[in-house]
């Protein structure tokens, strides 16, 4: 068998690459769920392409604890809490798009606690609007002040090419290549599997667990980034599929 590139200009512009014989060409014209596992490319599929990468360091300000009164005996503080939003970056997609977020170099779980001083804590999540990516910070203080902290956030925003455009099944020029009505095109930066030092990981599994009140975080790269001392569960996480852009 050989890898075969087939472009059909008459039947909807289907273009696909499969590993098989010429006699199988028609089998993959409109692939079933099972067929997808046998294809290298098919113009019916909605490929994931990088839309934008945003990276910035956010200076989270000091959160001073309140020492004005005592709520219970032997303490000299009052519980305070609050929240704030910080801009990570702008984008031009016009709608919220799927994304993957990093916090200080590790793929993050939203709601992650980035600072904890004797129970005073600061936790964050990332959210996407039609024009911006922002970090939402919630803090609470007890007897300790939370010092200012700088956190680097990196966000991959994705396009997925759900619809074809034009009527060109296959086109090659000295500067461009297009197949499947634009689904496969040098105009896009596709994501592709990468086992060694990938840009990020894609996963279908849980990335955290709770037990005995504690928390364990295992991002899709399979390394434990946080485990509270009281966590007594058995979660080990899993390693997703590495991807490069």
């Amino acid at each position, binding site marked *: 068998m050989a890898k075969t590139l087939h472009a059909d200009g008459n039947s909807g512009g289907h273009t696909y690459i499969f590993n098989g014989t010429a006699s199988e060409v028609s089998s993959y014209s409109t692939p079933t769920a099972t067929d997808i596992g046998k294809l290298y*490319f098919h113009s019916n599929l909605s490929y994931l392409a990088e839309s934008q990468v945003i990276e910035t360091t956010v200076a989270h300000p000091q959160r001073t604890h309140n020492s004005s009164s005592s709520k219970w005996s032997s303490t000299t503080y009052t519980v305070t809490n609050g929240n704030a939003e910080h801009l990570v970056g702008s984008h031009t997609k016009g709608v919220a798009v799927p994304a993957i977020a990093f916090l200080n170099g590790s793929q993050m*779980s939203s709601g992650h606690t980035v600072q904890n001083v004797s129970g005073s804590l600061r936790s964050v999540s990332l959210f996407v609007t039609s024009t911006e990516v922002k970090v939402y910070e919630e803090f609470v203080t007890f007897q300790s002040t939370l010092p200012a902290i700088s956190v680097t956030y990196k966000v991959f925003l994705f396009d997925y090419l759900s619809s074809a455009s034009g009527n060109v099944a296959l086109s090659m020029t000295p500067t461009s290549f297009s197949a499947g009505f634009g689904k496969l095109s040098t105009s896009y930066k596709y994501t592709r599997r990468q086992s060694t030092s990938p840009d990020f990981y894609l996963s279908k599994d*849980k990335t955290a667990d*709770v037990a005995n009140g504690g928390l364990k975080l295992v991002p899709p790269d399979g390394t434990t980034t946080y485990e509270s001392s009281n966590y007594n569960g058995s979660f080990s996480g899993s390693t997703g599929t590495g991807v490069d852009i």
Partner: protein
Amino acid sequence: MSVSIQNNNIQVTDSSNVVIFDTSTPMPHITNVITNTINHTFPNTTHSTSTNYGVTWNACSYFEFTSNYEYICNNEYVCNWECTYSYYDGFSCSNVCGWQNVCGYEYVSSWGWFTGNGEDSATRGIAQSSDNGTVYTIGSVDTGLDPDFLLVEATFSRTTSGGQVDFGTFVSSLKTGSKVIANGSTVVETAFAQDGDPWLTRLVSVYLDGDDVKAEFKHSNKEYTSLTVNYGTCCPNPRGYSCNPGSSFPATRDISSVWSVSFKIYVGKFTI
């Protein structure tokens, strides 16, 4: 730009000679977009209290009418006719007076103030440890598709907020009403003790189970005794009956929270 078809491999590069496609490096693609809204209540836990009892001396004052049958002695000036008889003088009587200690039982009653000891209590609330989880099916994909990854966008809403008497409402750093990046597991609520460890954590995890995309809402808390102490005191009945010093306000608080999460799941798969 180049298109290379050789050695059973197809590769396309752009004008910068960057590979945009190669049959040896599978490409992820989106097979389904699933939307659904899941409502979940993280349940309350069992609460109890721990109370230490004590006594405060002379903490109670009473103004009370008292009456008692008492044995009383008084130094009284007493006069008595005393008669003597002699053979020569016959009877001779005289009034003899003098101070004497006179004792006897008397019924004594009066209104007055007096003090007694107060009975005290110091009560702390205890949230018992609990672990629970509920799994919901957000949606399903075609049988045999065998997806490789999920990208999750979630809009969270908390309609009821649990809390704790020491720290108030549980902390959540999720921007409610916004599209949060929620791949894998998301911490929805947490509370830390003063030792720096969380004593309560709640997660929402989105994962693939066969052909189903599922969401697990999972809760865990270890036992927590409140720092807040609720003091109570009472004065027992002067007749000796005890009292029951309660606390002025609850030492515990309902920890249940109600969340609604609108999911948008991009289900993906790699080509071979």
